[in-house]
């Protein structure tokens, strides 16, 4: 854990960045600024994900290496997922477009 308390400059900076962003998100939300709050939250999520990966690797360093896992690529099902994702998002867009048109119609009337 000392890696995050000065042992590693990069990891310590990452931890500090997460803390600063958390305070920033609270400050922005209290000021009622939506988009800066959202960007802070997205940045915090990215920092948290990175921290979790790094922390797990350092915690398990002596007993586990990801390279020891057997890799089984599954490109077929990945392609199927991507096709379904695009089709699903298109369907959602059709519905949202209908909602926007209904809202626009209501605003005109």
């Amino acid at each position, binding site marked *: 854990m000392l890696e995050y308390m000065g042992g590693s400059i990069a990891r310590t900076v990452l931890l500090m960045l997460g803390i600063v962003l958390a305070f920033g998100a609270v400050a922005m939300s209290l000021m009622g600024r939506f988009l800066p709050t959202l960007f802070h939250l997205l940045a915090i999520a990215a920092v948290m994900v990175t921290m979790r990966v790094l922390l797990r690797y350092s915690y398990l360093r002596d007993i586990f290496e990801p390279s020891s896992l057997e890799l*089984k690529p*599954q490109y*077929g*099902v*990945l392609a*199927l*997922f991507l096709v*379904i*994702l695009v089709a*699903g*998002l298109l*369907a*959602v867009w*059709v*519905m*949202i477009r*209908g*909602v926007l048109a*209904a*809202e626009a*119609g*209501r605003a005109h009337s």
Partner: protein
Amino acid sequence: MNYPIWLLEKLGGGTLIAIIAVLHVYISHLAVGGGLFIWLMDRRARRSGDTALNDFLRRYNWIFLLVTMVLGGLTGVGIWFVIGLVNPAATSTLIHTFVFGWAIEWVFFIGEITALLVYHYYFDKLERVLREKVAFFYFLFAFLSLVIINGILSFMLTPGKWLATGGFGTASSIRPISPRCCSGLSSRS
């Protein structure tokens, strides 16, 4: 990795899972069959100009939303919660074997939730043809999510060649999917 054991001496883990899962299965079948019902009735109301049927759909879809989305969502998460406690290793296998299966399932859930919210909150504001389309999207996504989850459940009943290969394609069988998908449709219609 070894997980701690959560021992339910009197009730048993399987019974606890069944209590939540049986309720969830009833609700999810209602969601699929009810989705078909709403779409067909909406179509009928538009074509025949039946205002009483239209009023019924307006009232019905609110109850339908509460039961399928709120109670169905809670029991669905409840299943994950309880299987994770009763058998963490099996839950981990289920997740890792079907990573993209779950990803596909979530695409269908997003479509399903969007369609039902749009249908309910814009019931009187959407053009009738578009509202009918939204009802169809709801049914389609609900049915497709049933197909995917059936494939995954079939794996737990009959893992097939997965025991030897460990691949996604060999982990589910189309044979057990068909009758249970049909039962989801017939339970409501």
